[in-house]
């Protein structure tokens, strides 16, 4: 299996800087996701790892072997990696078997060994009975699995996935998510996964790199970046969040626009702050510190999506859907904030909220 060491990689197309100082190491057997809005540079990073782009500066090591950087450049075909493309890139002029056998055929593997290996991966992706079919006889999901099988057949140490699920429908996407994760667990392969879908990233990754405008905003486990975002962008990109302007003091935060309620606070920030509250962290409780008028509530089955007016602000609350009947007919509600994130107000918030994807 393989590790990927990225050392100060920068990439620009002409004057356009798309990747700035990427510097990290993907460990052996790790499932890493590069997450970010479209155009953030995540696909460029993946293509640099694959060898389809050369970094403008910096070095890339696969298993401690320098593959890109300085005068060294090892072309994609010599890097021994597997890759699944967003469009699947299943060759229409070859049947499923030939498509999958291709990486082995290129290496002049013996016929029976090819057969064995192809059957092995066909089994993994549940396509055994489709070996003789041509791509135009397969559904999108099946083509996607052919592409995956082809990427896996030569047993590469590193698997690159470029938004592989974005062309599938919602149900299939969900089941493929777990299949990919299962395969990764089974084979122990290192995976670099590119997506703009935060749910996918959260569900599969050991580590997520959240990228915006070519800069890594934060990297960490899904739990870390969801619960302890380092800035407003990260907080906003993952999950749902409402921002409020507040003033931090010793032991408390006051939010003037809400009519001055006081939230307990034990952090170190003082003065103007951005308070970020996730809707699921607000609970309806009769002894809550916030008081507001219930403006609207939408029953979504598993949850109840509510809008509550507190002072001049509309606060979103996601409540347990089971108790929705109790909200019917109520005007006044009290709420408790069980968790919140506090950032220094650097004036960048409005801009960040504008590029929300």
């Amino acid at each position: 299996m393989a590790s990927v060491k990225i050392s100060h990689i920068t990439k620009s197309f002409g004057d356009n800087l798309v990747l700035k100082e990427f510097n990290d190491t993907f460990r052996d057997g790790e499932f890493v996701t590069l997450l970010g809005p479209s155009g953030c540079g995540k696909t460029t990073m993946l293509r640099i790892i694959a060898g389809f782009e050369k970094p403008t500066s910096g070095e890339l090591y696969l298993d401690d072997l320098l593959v890109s950087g300085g005068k060294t450049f090892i072309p994609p075909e010599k890097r021994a990696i597997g890759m699944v493309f967003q469009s699947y890139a299943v060759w229409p002029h070859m049947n499923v078997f030939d498509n999958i056998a291709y990486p082995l055929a290129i290496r002049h593997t013996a016929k029976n060994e090819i057969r064995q290996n192809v059957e092995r991966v066909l089994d993994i992706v549940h396509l055994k009975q489709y070996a003789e079919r041509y791509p135009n006889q397969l559904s999108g999901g099946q083509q996607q699995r052919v592409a995956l099988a082809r990427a896996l057949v030569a047993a590469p140490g590193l698997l690159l996935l470029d938004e592989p699920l974005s062309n599938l429908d919602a149900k299939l996407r969900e089941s493929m998510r777990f299949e990919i994760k299962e395969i990764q667990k089974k084979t122990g392969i290192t995976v670099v996964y590119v997506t703009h879908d935060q749910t996918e990233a959260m569900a599969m990754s050991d580590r997520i790199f959240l990228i915006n405008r070519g800069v890594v905003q934060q990297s960490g486990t899904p739990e870390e970046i969801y619960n302890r975002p380092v800035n407003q962008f990260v907080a906003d990109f993952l999950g749902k969040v409402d921002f409020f302007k507040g003033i931090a003091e010793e032991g408390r935060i006051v939010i003037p626009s809400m009519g001055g309620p006081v939230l307990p606070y034990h952090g170190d920030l003082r003065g103007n702050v951005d308070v970020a509250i996730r809707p699921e962290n607000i609970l309806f409780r009769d002894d809550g510190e916030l008081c507001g008028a219930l403006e609207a509530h939408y029953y979504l089955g598993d949850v109840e999506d509510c809008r509550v007016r507190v002072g001049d602000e509309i606060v979103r609350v996601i409540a347990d859907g089971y108790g929705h009947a109790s909200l019917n007919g109520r005007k006044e509600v009290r709420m408790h904030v069980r968790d919140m994130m506090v950032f220094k107000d650097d004036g960048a918030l409005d801009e960040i909220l504008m590029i929300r994807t």
Partner: protein
Amino acid sequence: MKEHSSLRREKPPIITKCALTALFLIGVLLLVSGLRGQRIIADDGFSSESAYRVIYSLSGHVGAVYRSHMKPDLDALEESDRAGVFSAARTLAVSAFETQSAGAGKDAEEAILLSAGREDETTLRLLYAAYLVSGPKINSSARKVIVAADSPEFRRQLLRCIVDDTLPLPAGSESAVGDLQGEAKKAMLMQVYFTATGSAGGQGAANANDFKKTVRDKGQQLLAFRMAARGEVSFLRQLITGHSKTIALLGIILLLDAVLLTLLMFSEKTWRFDIKWIFILLIVDFLLYFQMLPIVYMVIRSFFPEGGFTLDVFRRLYTEPINLEALKNTLISSFATMILGTLIAFPLAFLVGRTNLYGRKFFRSLFVITYMVPPYVGAMAWLRLMNPNVGTVNLWLRTLFGLSDAPGPLNVYTLSGMIWVLTTFYYPYAFITISRAMEKMDPSLEEASRVSGASPLKTLFTVTLPMMMPSLIGGALLVFISAASCYGIPSIVGINGNISTVTTRIVEYNGQSQAKMNDATALAVFLMAVALIILFISDVVLARKQYITVSGKSVRPSIVDLRRWRLPLTVMVCLFAVVMVVIPFTTILLTSLKGDIGKSVLDSGNFTLNNWTGIFTRNETISCLKNSLLFASCTATVGLVIACVMSYLMQRTRVRGRTIPNFLITLGSGTPSVVIALGLIITMRGNFGLDIYNTAWIMIIAYLIKYQMMGMRTVVSAMSQIHVSLEECSQVSGAGWLTTMRRVTGPLILPSIAAGWFLIFIPSFYELSMTALLYTGSTKTIGYQLFEYWTNHGEAMSCAMAFGILLIVVVLNFILGRLTRGEFSI
């Protein structure tokens, strides 16, 4: 709502049903009366209907003239009196002939038939007038024979032969006309007769075209007189008989329309009339009459040359050495051009489209531009370069290798010379097809191969090439059929080299005797069969195999890094461009500036602009240029109107049958030019209701059939790129259909409309193959004028003219490139 529509399915609205039935009945009525008209003509023993047509159109006038001379009530006349009237009418006819210095081509034969049995002075004068008009070229040995046998008895015999076709031929003329039959024989005999009487035979031959034109204008008056003499002036009868073929054809077309409409409505299961069908039917009718009728008629004619079924015409193709030679030459040269052209085009398309070659964009537009250059210009250049005696390249090679002054080593006047010239002008067809497919290919298909461990070269052969195969074959077939139907290059190269191809044969045979026209028809049918097979393969078989490789994202093809090969390959492509483009066109330019074309342009006193000023101040050049501009503009404008209607129907409606015109238009553009022209010649001279032979219309229609598709595809693809929601949004905003077209759709597709216009205009402007068959003295175009100049006059002047045409085309191309950003389809 749903119930409502299903109700509608059950019961067709009564109005539509009535209209359909009415249409059907009118069609039947017209067909029947047309056929009845034909019967009347047949009963009267006339083979031409034009007499009736003329009497109808001139009945008022002629009737008055006639009555003022004769006054009698024809019906009341006794048999003997009638003969008197008849004779008077003939005298009138003769005076009409002579005062207008014309008779009537085929129609004159009718006049002669009328005179059956009357071997008097009037008949002779009639015959003389007829000969002046319709005498085709007489073969000189026959003339000699006849002139030698100049006796009154012989003449008398001959006249009887011509008139009733019963008596044996006089000994002398038998050998000259013996193997001819029917009309051709009659015409030949007539010539022979007049040659024998020694009456000004040369005049007719020298000015045949002018005579024919006069006949068309004036000759009908003669027949009007004759009809008046017969007293057949009832209005309805005149109408039916005078236009019997037109009426019958109109009936058939209406019937077809009615059947088509019924089928459409039946398959739609709604008996509602859609106004859009009128447009579809109009276009279909137009194409049926001007495109399908000539082609179908030509095929029928080739199997039934004299009315009965025979394969003789085709057998002659194999047995006549000259035809067999032409067939062989065409197949060999087209096949070789296809192989050579594709071998050049594929690597070139790859280098220019998919590698980091220096100056790719420049090379791309350079190679694409050659596609738009008239092929005969290139042929002229290569003739200058590879002339076995004085060709520039040959001179270089001789000095370079110290060869003797013997002709060679290269000779353009050979089959291989012709293949070379064809290749230089038809490889862009493959180049454009292949590079478009290459640029549209999803790059991740190749990247997937790279990641799988294949080198760029291996990827090229295992992924790129197999996926390109349908386009590659499509491009190759396009080169094949273009080379096979090319007339300009074989005609220019072949004249000196004595190499004939199917196209040059057809043009040569045109207008000659019936037997040769039959040969031309058979050759054309052969060429068309080849074209149809190729059209079928590339549009049906290959299209089905075409892999859909266009990805949803905007495609940025992955560029192969040539590394240390970058410079050498760029130099190679440069050299190629110099050989293919720079040298030929420079040669043309330099030759046009020479006083003595044997010397260098730098020799003292040899540089001159006289050729340029000479050629472009000639009245004939100017009038040809005017003709070309006028015809091409007409073609482009009409084509564009059809293209706009079609693109709207294809892209914005789901109306059934909208692909029928599309299919017909594709078929038309796939038909070789000479086939279209020949088909029009044999059907549009009045025998199917419309006589536009020897007019500008027949040329415009021919251009339209051949080039309309280019314009249509451009507009259709532009329309397909405008999402329908843009229009819907405008409608939702309150704009009507017309406002939406004017404010939203119109401005968006305007560049493509202009581009489509130029795409039809440019090839029509310099067209040669069809013009060579269809032109007359007054409708000569610049392309044909140049061709004539090259074959009959100086090379220097024709080079000046060629370069002038080239400049016009390049300027138009530049405009076109601006409008489409280099993306146009063929």
